[in-house]
């Protein structure tokens, strides 16, 4: 009897915490916004495209060979190990755009290439697997930035003094250069160091160096605000260590703002990487990547080749629009200033 009561209590509390969040004012505001919900659904569709890329644009050529695929139906068969491998651990050759022919001139959409081809590359395949590639990058980069931002921002805000001063002046220095310029500088130097290599790691490094500071600024501001609250003093009086105070009592308070920022970053990172590849600074020709597909369209700006540009452009704009609709509403709902 005496042991059962606290257990029941915790179960009850956990459930109510979720309900509190779900039925709270920000969530209700968000759920009422139809445009935002449409944006969320389209965004989730893009996520599904990324996840199920092997089924939407089935592997062929080198990718199929490296997967050990003997017939196309294997990708759709959950009993076959090929499907799971294609979905969760595809070999690097799968991120090479399928090259159907070596004809330079674009070919109109067909059953094999629903968006047509350019330079022999299958545009549909490039866009679908490109979604997967950019989502992967976006999650890795945003994840690292959030963690770094929380740790550095919390240290800066919680300890104050010269540590805080040093970190803030360092951020001033980083912000002195526009982030796109800094990204280009870092990428150029890393590419010069290893010409022709896989640019994934350099892109991640460049985005982390330019990205963590804005998270840490938010966390620091929140920490400064909550550090003075009484419950933090109470926790300290009970003997809580600095780390416990930061991660148990201070950081959870700023999670809503952080998540909003992170969701927005999940959209800006893919578009940024696409822009870099479009400019010839990201992924080299042949990788499945959005910006490259747009770049291929540059010499074919004639009405009869409309599909070369319009399908990839519509794909990217739809992604950006959906994310913006959802992100704006999310910010409105969770931003403390608009409540």
């Amino acid at each position, binding site marked *: 009897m005496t042991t059962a009561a606290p257990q029941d209590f915790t179960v009850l509390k956990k459930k109510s915490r979720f309900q509190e969040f779900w039925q709270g004012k920000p969530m209700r505001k968000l759920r009422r916004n139809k445009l935002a919900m449409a944006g969320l659904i389209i965004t989730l569709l893009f996520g599904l495209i990324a996840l199920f890329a092997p089924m939407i644009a089935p592997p062929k050529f080198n990718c199929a060979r490296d997967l050990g695929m003997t017939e196309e139906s294997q990708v759709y068969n959950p009993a076959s190990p090929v499907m799971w491998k294609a979905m969760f651990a595809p070999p690097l050759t799968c991120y090479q755009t399928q090259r159907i022919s070596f004809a330079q001139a674009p070919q109109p959409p067909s059953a094999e290439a629903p968006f047509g081809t350019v330079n022999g590359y299958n545009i549909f395949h490039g866009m679908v697997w490109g979604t997967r590639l950019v989502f992967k990058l976006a999650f890795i980069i945003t994840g690292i930035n959030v963690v770094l931002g929380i740790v550095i921002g919390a240290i800066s805000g919680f300890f104050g003094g010269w540590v805080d001063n040093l970190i803030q*002046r360092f951020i*001033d*220095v980083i912000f*002195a*250069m*526009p982030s*796109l*310029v*800094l990204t*280009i*500088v*870092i*990428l*150029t*130097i*890393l*590419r*010069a*160091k290893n*010409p022709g290599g896989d640019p994934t790691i350099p892109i991640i490094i460049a985005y982390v160096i330019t990205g963590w500071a804005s998270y840490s600024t938010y966390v620091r501001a929140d920490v400064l605000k909550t550090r003075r609250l009484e419950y933090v003093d109470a926790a300290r009086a009970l003997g809580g260590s600095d780390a416990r105070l930061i991660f148990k009592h201070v950081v959870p308070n700023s999670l809503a703002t952080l998540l909003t920022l992170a969701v927005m970053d999940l959209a800006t990172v893919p*578009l940024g990487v*696409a*822009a870099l590849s*479009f*400019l*010839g*600074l990201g992924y080299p020709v042949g990788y499945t990547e959005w*910006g490259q597909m*747009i770049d291929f*369209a*540059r010499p074919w*700006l*004639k*009405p009869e080749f*409309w599909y070369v*540009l*319009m399908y990839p*452009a519509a794909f*990217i*704009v739809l992604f*950006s*629009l959906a*994310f*913006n*609709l959802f992100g*704006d509403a999310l910010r409105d709902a969770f931003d403390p200033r608009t409540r």
Partner: protein
Amino acid sequence: MFNLIVKRLLQIPIIMLVLSMLVLGLTMLLTPAQRAAGYVKNEQQAVRIDEIIRERGLDQPFFTQYGNWLQNTLQGDLGFSKSVGEPVLDAILTRLPNTIELTLFSFIPIIVLGVWLGTLSALKKDGLVDQVIRVLVVLAFSLPTFVLGIVLLAVFYGYLGWAPGPGQITVENRLLLDQLIASGEFQKYTGMLSLDAMLNGQWRIARDVLAHLILPVITLSLVITATIVKLMRTSMLESLTSDFVRTARSKGLSERMVNNKHARRNALIPIVNSGGFILLGLLTGSMITESIYAYPGIGRWLLDSARNLDIASVLGYSLFVALLVVSIRTLIDIGFTLVDPRVRYD
């Protein structure tokens, strides 16, 4: 006040020193030969690259190298841009006026359209006009620059043939211009081609240059215009519900007077405050637009250099831009404190 200004101004060289140290520290990842490539002007020099490394001390410890670099840079020697075959400083200075021209032309629609549409949207809140403007703003805001630029170019140049192709000027007019410059009939007053052509009375050239500017200006300004419309709408709504506007109305002033004189002028404050930052953003953010439209500004030069792994140019550009950003930001901050005594930066 004086102390504050001095303190802010002193921060500029410190930030620049630390930043250049970080950026130069990054180049230590490269081999001395790669670093020396930034000082090689031609084939003959490329042969004796070992001498250049020794002369410039590029195999020395970092701080010696940094000292040498700083000394050279302060004397205006930023290295040689192999992607265009000119010294880096010259490459920046010859291209900067073009970028400034593009920036200034983009600034006009941003402010005019932004303020006009924002005001309209706020005055007709929740009406049809407001709904349409808000949808357009979200659409414009979601267009990535590189997609927008290439689609505009395809539609208006490739499909419809209404706009001129990429570049700053057509070939015939370029030849005419070269002739005029050679014969001394064309004076460069500002370095901005359209203004210079007008000042010289060469209307054909001016029209051509302006026609080439239309699409780049739309591409560069659309996203920022959307932001300004949003900002102006919020600010105007706030101002319309404030006490002094109610007082003005209750005095019996006409609707027009209240909206234009009382409400809008106060709603403009945040727009005026962000003006400097918009210019800065345009100046440093024009590279994608310039690259798509083959516009000969500093942004396109940076991208060409980065693609060719031309380290000297990329470093030169980035430090130049950082200096620009830090100086203009400081000036804006100081300007605010001078104009508005309530503003304090501590």
